[in-house]
């Protein structure tokens, strides 16, 4: 871990340089802030709580080509298409950065790993900016995170004063950035200053994050057949926005697009909210009801994932809280689960 400072006016220079290697950062577009590739003189947004889309989009794009094929008569040819993407992603909030380590459990661990995801994880430097504003929907502290956490980030910036940032560089990718642009970064401030700034961010109050999660996984062990799921599902529209915007949801499908002999196998996000997601060719669907699918989403994040990986599959970013059209989001459902008797009486 090394610390440096960065002058506010040097930030624009840094953006210009990162842009050359390929940079994704938040921009204001049609009234919302979204992560987008930065080209030309496109301005990086600074005044936002969290971009509408998550940093997942960089590491697991909504759609991407995996290989090309040619079935012409001289013989089948299959050629893998390399992962595309930036070298840097800037403006990542601590919740999104931490979400990457949850995605790592799925894509970078176990017998089979995902070379597309891993390549990006190895090559993309994640530059975080600690949160000056805490949103009403933010609840990161419920999951052991905070507005100043560094989990999953290679670099984290904290506002030091009106003129400069304190910058923390971690690991190989973080250190490389500090070494690459020595002219941009100033000397580290005194240790007490570093300590005070980081602590002030990490101890920042997140009102919605006070929700207590102790025992919820164990309670859910006995709630598979609970009437709560049908009650919740009744208002769900199955639009899937919660899964698309979620920085930890990773489900996808594979399909072909072909014209004549040539085609491409692509990957595309899918959602457990959709009935087709589990429908089999023979007509059998193990999750035919809306209630089955609502249950899957919350059980996966608060129970199954915990059993498999030892932690919740949620970072409290608040996107589902903000965007669910019917208020069926993680924070509300946590309170619903806590509020019912696990045996079905309500």
């Amino acid at each position, binding site marked *: 871990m090394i610390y440096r400072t960065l002058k506010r006016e040097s930030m624009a220079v840094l953006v210009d340089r990162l842009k050359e290697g390929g940079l994704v950062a938040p921009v204001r577009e049609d009234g919302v802030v979204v992560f987008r590739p930065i080209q030309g003189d496109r301005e990086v947004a600074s005044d936002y709580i969290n971009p509408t889309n998550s940093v997942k989009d960089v590491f697991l794009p909504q759609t991407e080509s995996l290989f090309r094929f040619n079935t012409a008569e001289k013989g089948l040819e299959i050629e893998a298409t390399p992962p595309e993407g930036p070298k840097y992603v800037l403006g990542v909030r601590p919740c999104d950065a931490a979400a990457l380590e949850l995605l790592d459990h799925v894509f970078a661990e176990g017998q089979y790993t995902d070379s597309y995801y891993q390549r990006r994880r190895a090559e993309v430097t994640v530059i975080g900016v600690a949160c000056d504003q805490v949103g009403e929907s933010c609840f990161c502290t419920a999951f052991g995170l905070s507005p100043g956490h560094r989990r999953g980030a290679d670099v984290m910036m904290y506002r030091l004063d009106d003129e400069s940032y304190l910058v923390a560089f971690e690991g190989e990718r973080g250190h490389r950035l500090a070494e690459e642009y020595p002219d941009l970064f100033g000397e580290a401030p005194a240790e007490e200053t570093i300590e005070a700034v980081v602590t002030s961010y990490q101890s920042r109050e997140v009102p919605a994050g006070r929700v207590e999660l102790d025992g919820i996984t164990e309670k859910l062990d*006995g709630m598979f057949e609970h009437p709560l799921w049908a009650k919740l599902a009744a208002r769900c529209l199955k639009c899937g926005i919660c899964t698309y915007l979620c920085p930890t949801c990773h489900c996808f499908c594979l399909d072909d697009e*072909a014209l004549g002999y040539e085609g491409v196998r692509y990957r595309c996000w899918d959602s457990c909210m959709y009935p087709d997601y589990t429908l089999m060719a*023979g007509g059998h669907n193990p999750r035919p009801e809306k209630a089955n699918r609502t249950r899957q989403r919350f059980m996966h994040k608060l129970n199954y994932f915990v059993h498999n990986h030892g932690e919740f599959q949620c970072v409290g970013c608040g996107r589902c809280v903000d965007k669910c059209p019917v208020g069926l989001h993680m924070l509300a459902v946590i309170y619903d689960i806590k509020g019912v008797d696990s045996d079905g009486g309500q």
Partner: protein
Amino acid sequence: MTLINPYKPEPAVIQAIRSETPDTTTYTMKFRDLQEFSFEPGQFNMITLFGYGEAPISISSAPSEDGTFEHTVRHVGNVTNAMAGLREGDTLGVRGAYGTGWPMSQLEGQDVLIIAGGIGLAPLRPVIQAVIGDRRKGNGRYGSMEILYGARTPADCLFKDDYEEWRSAEGVNLLLTVDAVPQGMDWEHNVGVVTALFDQMKSRPADTIVLTCGPEVMMKFVVRGLLERGFSPDRLYLSLERRMSCGVKKCGNCQIGSKFVCKDGPVFAYAELMTLSEEVL
């Protein structure tokens, strides 16, 4: 950094095509370039028909020395319907073998009871071939084997060409049943559901490992009937079917509670399924 692309299939050439029933076909395949390929009975491959997509299909033959392997496909979906148009010499894409297969090492020294319905006989055929092959070599690794197989009609029975060989193998008992026999068709075996064959079987709970695959409703009654007859849940194994996109525990399609059918299954001990909060059967 050396990374293995888990999604890229290998070309495989169709060596032979055998029609099993009006809607089911067995394809014998061999990899065009890939030299090393090993699998266990009960595992599956992801089969690509380029331009149509990919589907998980059980391997329906035992491992062979000539590098060929078989897939028995019912033509019911997008990919499998398109496969009906394939001819010998055609090339498709195959990646695998994936999943946890039948507990072959646990079968050693035990009697084997196989209960299959419809296309469910396909992932069990490698076990039948392995047990009979072992006996032919005189290894005597397994006890007796009883096969209970049910199909809709006599014409829907899979692997009819194999029955004579299975019956004539030492210590093998094959019992067949169908739901219905169309008028004018010869059928000298049982009519009724597969559990109706339980009264004719000789397998005893204490000496037998049970392997079953078929529609979930069939397996539900098979499991219930066997438990009533004193078979213990840790000696019952079943192969489940779920939608799959990746086959390597990433896409999420095949999740049942904290288990993934593509990797933790498709074969599960019934005792393991009992530990899940979700009642699978």
